[in-house]
């Protein structure tokens, strides 16, 4: 990859951009890039970035804002009346703590550039950019709905499972805590 790397460009996908040849050998990821990505951009649902060589789309990723809501069971009500109410009502009001996040929606590497470490460079860059963006807008986590075959990759990068409820499914929900970059 190093010898071709000088020709790479990082491009924000827009409606007028002509997408170059790309095949990551995954029908869904290919279809998203060619059929959906521009529409998602127009609708503000996901922003897609392309890494291009002179002749091909080397890789792409799409990202969007997300949030993780966590239910706090031991939420302490401020007044004694509310405490009493909480004990009397069988389904007390749940308190949700919300964490701002950035979700990696899609990440695809062209078959000619696989197994060359490009995926970890891209995800590392997403993590780093999100960390730096905290000067403008808060972002605590990177989230991803990872394909089973990519779980090892994300684990190696420090991502954790959000829940055990999705064990055995074709994808697993994972997160990376950006605060760790402060350490």
């Amino acid at each position, binding site marked *: 990859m190093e010898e071709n790397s000088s020709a790479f460009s990082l491009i924000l996908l827009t409606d007028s951009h002509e997408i170059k040849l790309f095949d990551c050998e995954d029908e869904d990821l290919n*279809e998203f890039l060619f059929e959906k990505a521009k529409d998602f951009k127009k609708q503000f649902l996901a922003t897609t970035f392309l890494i291009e060589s002179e002749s091909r789309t080397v890789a792409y990723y799409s990202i969007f804002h997300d949030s993780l*809501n966590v239910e*706090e069971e031991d939420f302490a009500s401020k007044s004694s009346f509310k405490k009493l109410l909480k004990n009397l009502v069988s389904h007390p*009001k749940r308190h949700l703590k919300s964490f701002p996040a950035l*979700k990696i929606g899609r990440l695809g590497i062209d078959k000619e550039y696989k197994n060359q470490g490009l995926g970890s460079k891209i995800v*590392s860059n997403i993590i780093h950019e999100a960390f730096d963006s905290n000067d403008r807008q808060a972002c605590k986590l990177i989230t991803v*709905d990872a394909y089973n075959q990519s779980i090892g990759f994300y684990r*190696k990068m420090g991502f954790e499972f*959000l829940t055990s409820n999705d064990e055995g499914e074709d994808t697993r*929900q994972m997160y990376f805590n950006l605060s760790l970059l402060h350490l």
Partner: protein
Amino acid sequence: MIYCIYEIICLKSHIFVYNIMAKPIKITPVLKGRDAINFLNKLKDNKQPTSNSSIFSIRKEAEAFKALIKKK
């Protein structure tokens, strides 16, 4: 009851948004019970099995990515 209705509306709107695609991206779940406790404890103590070398590697890889991209 009101909260349940709100959740159903949210769920339906998410299904509408994400079913446009062949393989939908699952929405990030609301963490409850043991999952919530584990998550909050990890955040509180900044506990995550991410070694210093992994963090160093992320920084290094991000720099390597920037070096790959030509300036326009």
